């Protein structure tokens, strides 16, 4: 089947099998390997991207379901330089092996956008329930999200 979608502001058209997972499409067809795969049961969140403005686990979506959609992956999050969330993960040592990090950052960006700059530690910890990290113990991730939230401000 032919699908067309916009990824990081660029339009792509590809012939794909209907069963091809969106995450495999992104990684293999578009060679955007910043989106990682950490599980096969939709638990880990390593594959999180933005699909039409929402944080979505791209392993739970078929590529064909994303036809016509606007996607952002970790590679396209910042334009130039670093997004405040990326900067905060760096500043606060919110990563070690880095494998969960792109998914964490993509989830956290939407979490802050939803809650604005005032979100509480508890809201952050609950908001990250769909993203597993085996290295950091989460504490510095929470601090990173707090820093970015202050910086990003806003909210609905």
């Amino acid at each position, binding site marked *: 089947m032919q699908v067309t979608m916009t990824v990081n502001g660029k339009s792509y058209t590809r012939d794909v099998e209907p069963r091809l997972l969106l995450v495999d499409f992104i990684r293999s067809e578009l060679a955007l390997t910043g989106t990682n795969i950490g599980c096969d049961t939709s638990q880990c969140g390593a594959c999180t991207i933005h699909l039409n403005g929402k944080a979505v686990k791209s392993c739970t979506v078929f590529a064909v379901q994303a036809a016509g959609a606007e996607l952002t992956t970790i590679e396209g999050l910042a334009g130039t330089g670093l997004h405040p969330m990326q900067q905060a993960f760096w500043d606060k040592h919110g990563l070690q092996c880095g494998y969960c990090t792109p998914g964490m950052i993509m989830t956290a960006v939407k979490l802050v956008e939803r809650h604005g700059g005032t979100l509480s530690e508890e809201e952050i910890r609950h908001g990250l329930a769909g993203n597993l990290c085996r*290295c950091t113990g989460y504490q510095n991730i929470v601090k990173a999200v707090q820093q970015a939230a202050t910086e990003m401000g806003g909210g609905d």
Partner: protein
Amino acid sequence: MGNYMGESIKRREDPRFIQGKGKYVANLHIPNMAHVAILRSPYAHARIRSINTDAAKALDGVIAVYTGQELIDGGVGKLPCGWNVPDIKVPDRWPLMVDRVRHVGDSVVAVVAESPYIAYDALELIEVDYEPLPVVIDARKTTEPGVPLVHDEIPDNISYAWALGNKDETEQAFASAEHVVELELINQRLIPNAMEPRAAVAQWDAYTEEMTLWTTSQNPHPIRLLLSAFTLGIPEQKLRVISPDVGGGFGSKIFHYPEEVIVPWIAREINRPVKWVCSRSESYLTDSHGRDHVTVARLALKKDGTFTGLHVQTWSNQGAYLSTFAPLIPTALYITLLSGLYKIPAIWGEMWGTLTNTVPVDAYRGAGRPEASYLVERLVDIAAQELGMDPVELRRKNFIPADEFPYQTPVAFLYDSGDYHRLFDKALGMFGYDALRESQKAAREQGRLVGIGVAGCIEASGPAPSQVAGALGAAVGFWESAVIRVHPTGKATVLTGSHSHGQGHETTFAQVVADQLGMDINDVEIVHGDTGRVPFGMGTYGSRSGCVGGSALVRAAEKVRAKAIKIAAHQMEAAEEDIVYDRTTGKLHVKGSPAHAKGFAEIAFAAYTAHNLPAGLEPGLEESAFYDPANFTFPNSCHISQVEIDRETGEVHIQHYTAVDDVGNVINPLVVEGQILGGIVQGIGQALTEAAVYDEAGQLLSGSMMDYAVPKAMLFPMFDVDRTVTPSPHNPLGVKGAGEMGTIAATVAIANAVMDALAPLGIRHLEMPLTASKLWHAIQGASGGNGMQATNETPLGGRDEPGDPANWPERQILSD
């Protein structure tokens, strides 16, 4: 310039990770690459009657299908065990099994196809005729009459037995004990769950007959050695093993796995690049698991609380085969740590390494040391309860005093340094121990289940003096290598045999070298994880990178400085002894005249032009070192937690958590704190949520992330983390290992808190994980609730009581 030691420098590797540019093996794409999938046994134990791969081979897009026999005919060898204790029986393990499978997930057939999707389709078309056999799962049942043998040639399913300590003194200590605490406990099986699943990519160059293997390994050189000498047979000089960015390991990526043989073998066979990526579900069935001990332990005391003896018997479940370092974990990394932080004059520890129809068990973060800490610290808590003492006071009474280091335990180790009273003072102060004990009393009066748990733990990190390791069974040495290659412009490329899979070596090792040579840190590049670029090195595990790898860097830097001084002395017409190498500025001058200094870059350039060098001095400025540590280092920790258990749901809420660790000097406090924080969460995972659960047929019930509870962010409060420092006296940096301490201490700090919370209900001990459902049942049972009983079988169900020393089995004594 210089002065980088002890600085919280932000990691230089992070920009690539936060921008999605991590170089993980699964991200590698090579044109014309084919994809491998492995058919795995659905049975825990079965004979393979026949395998029919015709339909799979006929599928469009399938390139080839291989069985175990074809691999053997093609020259692959058995996977070796790299740790051989006396009289060990090592079962055969092939990359693909041939006539029998011994655990669910055992590998049977390999398919290579044009895409991973096609390779998985082909697996469905393979017919294997299995004849299921009876299984044994539980370590404590392996020797019972009528239990099947996992390997026909290994009687009683016992691969080896091991013991250490002073047996006679221990017998006497129990004979004259005024009080004895006895505890049977289980240290449950865990699954490491590094977030990056294992992967391998291989490329064969048919012209040069060179193989390159990219693999998710913590130690690429030992993997190359094993591939070359045992499993694949490609000579070491023709084989390059690269571990690029590795997404966590926690031990599970130390070992030599079947796929590391299968993938390059196929790449050569079909003369195409080949990739294999493990799915998470497969990784549950194939990554080596951790822990899995059943133990009976007894502590002898005087009435005043003085420890006089400890006796430990452990049945260690090794799984269906011996993974690469499996026998090391429950022997030299476990029984050797039974002295904890304490003076215990008599210790006798013995263990049996048993084979079962389960995934092989090997090192998992902490590896043997958490098992030792858990049992010692549970015993001490129960002893305090039985003697009516405060658990802190009982610990303090038995601490090895600060002025008795180095301290020789009865179980082989010579502790290097420590000050356990100071450690506890700091932790108790930060935690507010006395005040929280007071408020606990008030909470208890209201019927609330509030508990405080203290843990004082020891670790042996930075393995190891190679000679000692050899005597204990190691088939390899445990030194580390370093090369400092100073370029003519005064910048440096540094090669280390150590390997980061999240620890941040590119930053911390650059700190060490820049500090040693007085360089700008941005002029130092760290290279690791590539046998084609780095001299043979041992890799990263056992919290050894700083103490062993970092020390190797210091030794190489010392040689660079010595040569630079020679050149400077010659050019400034002074005696070498009169040259001052100022490490804060990176300049060299003659004593007394700092104004006339030569910069490090100037000296480096002179070394390469070689126009004006001292007679007989070789040109160039590149030095290497192989550092073999004089001893392990012995980090220690005090972790204290407060929990409250919800009576209605059994849920544990962690209210306060304080961690004070003595990891000696630190290179980068930010990185060390990160290691401790991550370790704490993994340790709490064992205490509260994680367990590998097998059913009676040997099916892994917790075989996916849906069923195996890797802890999530909302389980935890903010941890209060700090350090005390007693430098290790025997390595040049004074550092001790920091990678595992958090995991070792946290499990029992939380378990002790939960048991303290339940103490008013008369519950003495429950096995981990202390899940809400287990606690709810225990609370109901204890308070007469609905009459349901806590499920907490005794580990030895049916076995003879080990209590009487006359019944202790004879085992080889390695040391007195």
